[in-house]
């Protein structure tokens, strides 16, 4: 019946929308037969449909309108304005009633304000009498609250009807679909993505084909849009999970003789369907715990001055890519001392450690394996599978859980879970010719080094590497998987440093890294999951399936996960180890005189490599052009003095004090180091701030203040020197590229200014001189023959070196202020 009603409402709405245009048109020309027929069909259908349902008011209204319209159609009546208004008012009233029916309001009772009857009268009255009566009856009968007066309709039925409609916040149009169909669409889209990738591969092989590439790009964009939309389709409101909670709470509280009220919030938060299933058990477990252990019996609550009904609040919130679910109760809270005592008794911590731990840390001990504070194991909770399992299950999907509690006031569990578990960022690695994927969230760093550099050593069966001064256990992935290792790979492995949720670090040696990207993870068959090595499978872009490694499980299987005790203690140790202040860091380098020096790291903008030809030594201080800026250069080695033909390069440290920049020429840049040793001032060297020890070697720390005071100057944008060329093909095709690559801008001769270097052929130059129209700027004269003519300052046009040095000197000449004088 509900379905029928919904259909009736939908149909009526649709017709209203479709006929609204007709109504306005009919209104303008009441004689229009086609419009009249449309409106007649509408009221007729409404009347017919009302027969199925018990809507006497709707039936009466539509019947009256139908009668009037039927008369018009039969020619018994002329549709005068009064009648049109009356009919329109009825249609408007029908629209409002349909809204009311949809909202579930009872409209079957008698006409509350007589408005309906007035409308019906208006239609009928105007049948007999004409003139003002009909319209006035309409106005009289119109209740301003329920519908707009017909006179308003004359202006625009649509506009009048719309504001009268209820603005239903949940009126987003929805349809129900079987999940199976969704899955089919999803896998269809995944197939399309794979087909696209395959096509992309083939297109690349076939080369560039503009006619295909354009549409293909469009296809790619559309496909990724569709994929996003489909991913959203997988989302389900967490309501589906919440809806079972009140019943669960009711049953549990009845069983335990407690009174609990449940308050659910954030049911509209959306979550991947599979994720909802994953968190169902953990959530249920926590709720059981809360009712069983958290909320006191009514008598105890009353004795503590609380309401006898306990409150359990479950709220879901989305923030970015994670969902936080908070479960709070107003029970007696967690007992810090009892938890601590229990932890000491079970050997999780020692009494000495306990005194060093914060309340928060002690409370979170309840997630440790084998921990349960309930003294009496009840029917509901505390059967050995405790909160440690909850945490394990959440960590498996990349989530986390923590607890906080106010003694006597309640407990608050916070679950953090990722939005989706089907798409994760992953790293593809290769070992023994086979590829595997690792979830990116575990990957801390990738280290590529020889075994000697990593100081690989075997302690019994365990391999250890030294990483940043710490000994870190290392697993060979090939050994873990029982694959053959090639000797090459074993000697020169790539190490993926993995950080577990517990904070433990270990290295996984693989043969190589492929790439990283979003992986669509699919579940594996149970027999494969049983091996404990894999978390799922995924398809690479080329359609090849790869296995996703279950990092947490692999680490656990090799005893790399510290037990609860270490896990608890580690943060304490970390806090103690954290130095009071961060050490200053410096860039270590060897300067051009072979002296090891350092400069504070904050100053270093970049390490530049510049060709020697970019150095200009003409001024009192050498300068370098880098990125179109002229910067002062310090410490230039003699070997790098620019000379024609010196094609060497120099390493430069680009320092900046924020406003000005300068460059320091260095022999070799070593590394960034921490300045841990004491800084000993050097009074007799103004450019040295101090001398310190780095790795037992003395290092001069450069005094940045003195450096910038002496040499610093704001960078000047270097206009590229301009050059004009002879206007012939040889100059355009052969000379121009050479000049451009030497750093000159080629300008047409007519826009040349006095600083423009003109390259001309000697004949042209001589002709110009002869005519008294000599060139004003610097001039380079070219000759066609290798042999120089005595007395003329010309360069053979294929003498590259001479040409370049002429350009350099001409440019310097042109740029020097007053150089022309």
């Amino acid at each position, binding site marked *: 019946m509900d379905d029928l009603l919904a259909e009736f409402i939908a149909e009526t709405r649709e017709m209203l929308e479709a006929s609204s245009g007709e109504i306005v048109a009919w209104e303008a020309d009441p004689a229009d037969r086609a419009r009249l027929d449309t409106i007649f069909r509408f009221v007729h259908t409404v009347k017919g449909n009302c027969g199925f349902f018990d809507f006497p008011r709707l039936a009466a209204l539509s019947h009256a309108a139908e009668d009037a319209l039927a008369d018009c159609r039969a020619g018994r009546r002329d549709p005068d304005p009064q009648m049109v208004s009356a009919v329109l008012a009825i249609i408007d009233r029908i629209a409002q009633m349909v809204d009311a029916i949809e909202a579930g309001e009872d409209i079957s009772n008698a006409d509350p304000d007589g408005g309906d009857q007035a409308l019906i009268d208006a239609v009928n009255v105007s049948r007999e009498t004409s003139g003002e009566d009909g319209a006035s009856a309409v106005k009289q009968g119109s209740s301003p609250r329920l519908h707009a007066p017909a006179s308003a309709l004359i202006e625009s039925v649509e506009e009048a009807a719309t504001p009268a409609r209820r603005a239903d916040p949940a009126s987003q149009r929805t349809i129900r679909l079987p999940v199976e169909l969704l899955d089919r669409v999803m896998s269809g889209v995944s*197939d399309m993505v794979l087909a696209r990738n395959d096509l992309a591969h083939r297109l690349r092989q076939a080369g560039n084909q503009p006619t295909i590439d354009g549409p293909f790009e469009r296809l790619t964009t559309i496909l990724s849009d569709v994929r996003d939309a489909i991913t959203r389709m997988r989302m389900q409101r967490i309501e589906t999970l919440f809806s079972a909670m009140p019943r669960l709470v009711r049953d549990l509280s009845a069983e335990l003789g407690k009174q609990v009220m449940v308050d659910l919030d954030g049911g509209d938060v959306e979550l991947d369907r599979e994720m909802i299933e994953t968190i169902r058990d953990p959530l249920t477990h926590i709720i059981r715990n809360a009712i069983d252990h958290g909320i006191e019996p009514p008598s105890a609550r009353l004795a503590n001055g609380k309401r006898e009904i306990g409150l359990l609040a479950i709220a879901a919130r989305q923030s970015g890519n994670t969902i936080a679910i908070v479960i709070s109760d107003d029970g007696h809270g967690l007992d810090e001392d009892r938890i601590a005592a229990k932890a000491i008794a079970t050997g999780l911590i020692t009494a000495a450690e306990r005194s060093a731990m914060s309340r928060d840390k002690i409370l979170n001990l309840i997630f440790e394996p084998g921990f349960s504070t309930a003294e009496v194991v009840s029917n509901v909770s505390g059967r050995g599978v405790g909160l440690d399992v909850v945490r394990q299950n959440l960590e498996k999907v990349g989530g986390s859980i923590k607890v906080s509690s106010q003694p006597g006031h309640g407990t608050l569990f916070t679950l953090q879970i990722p939005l989706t578990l089907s798409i994760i960022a992953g790293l593809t690695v290769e070992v023994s010719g*086979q590829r595997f994927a690792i979830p990116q969230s575990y990957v801390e760093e990738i280290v590529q080094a020889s075994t000697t550099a990593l100081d690989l050593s075997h302690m019994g069966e365990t391999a250890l590497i030294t990483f940043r001064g710490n000994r870190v256990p290392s697993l060979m992935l090939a050994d873990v998987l029982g694959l053959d290792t090639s000797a090459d790979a074993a000697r020169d492995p790539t190490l993926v440093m993995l950080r577990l949720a517990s904070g433990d670090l270990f290295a996984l040696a693989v043969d190589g890294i492929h790439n990283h990207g979003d992986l669509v993870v699919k579940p594996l*068959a149970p*027999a*494969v999951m049983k091996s404990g090595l894999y978390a799922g499978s*995924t398809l690479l872009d080329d359609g090849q*399936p790869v296995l996703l490694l279950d990092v947490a499980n692999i680490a656990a299987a090799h005893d790399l996960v510290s037990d609860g005790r270490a896990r608890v203690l580690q943060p304490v140790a970390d806090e103690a180890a954290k130095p009071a202040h961060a050490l200053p860091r410096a860039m270590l380098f060897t300067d051009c005189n072979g002296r090891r020096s350092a400069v504070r790291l904050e100053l270093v903008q970049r390490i530049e490599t510049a060709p020697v030809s970019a150095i200009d030594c003409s001024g009192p201080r050498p300068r370098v052009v880098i990125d179109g800026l002229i910067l002062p250069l310090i410490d230039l080695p003699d070997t790098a003095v620019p000379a024609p033909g010196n094609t060497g390069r120099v390493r430069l440290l680009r320092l900046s004090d924020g406003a000005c920049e300068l460059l320091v020429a260095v022999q070799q840049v070593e590394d960034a180091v921490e300045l841990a040793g004491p800084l000993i001032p050097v009074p007799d060297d103004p450019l040295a701030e101090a001398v310190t020890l780095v790795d037992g070697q003395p290092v001069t720390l450069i005094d940045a203040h003195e450096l910038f005071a002496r040499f610093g100057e704001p960078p000047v944008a270097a206009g590229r020197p301009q050059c004009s060329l002879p206007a012939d093909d040889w100059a355009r095709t052969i000379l121009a590229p050479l000049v451009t690559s030497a750093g000159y801008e080629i300008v047409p001769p007519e826009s040349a200014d006095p600083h423009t270097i003109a390259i001309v052929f000697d004949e042209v130059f001589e002709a110009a001189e002869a005519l008294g129209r000599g060139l004003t700027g610097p001039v380079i004269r070219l000759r066609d023959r290798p042999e120089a003519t005595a007395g003329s300052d010309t360069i053979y046009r294929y003498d590259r070196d001479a040409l370049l040095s002429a350009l350099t000197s001409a440019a310097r000449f042109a740029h020097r202020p007053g150089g022309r004088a």
Partner: protein
Amino acid sequence: MTNQLLVIVQIAGRRCALSALDVKSVIEIGTVTPIPRAPAHIAGITALRSQALTVIDCRLALGLVQHAWPTDVRAAVVAEGGHAYALKVDQIEDITTAIGEPGQVPGGFGAQWSRVATGMIETLTGPALLIDLSALIAGPDALRHEAEAA
């Protein structure tokens, strides 16, 4: 159920029957990615469009040595417990109709065969052993585990 449709396959030289309703499709098997440390009868995973199939070698699933028989390039795709599997067999023969209900034979089929077989079934093309998919996919170790549990 007398006219149940069956897919007849050869497993280790024996004629076996799979319910045609269980067989989703027959595919030509492409590259199989081996799964290190997985049970021996799991040959690996392969991609069917965007789906990953677990490839089961039926001969090994019966605890038999696999290389004694030829292998069909085609594999039967079946769904069991929400996961899709591709079954590697000697040969996929035909689809036929069952006559009668599966029955037992005196003396049984042998330990491994009895584990995976529902019984003997007469078909239009002769008798065949009706296979229980979940037992087949569980692999040869299932029998040992059962024995241990008992």
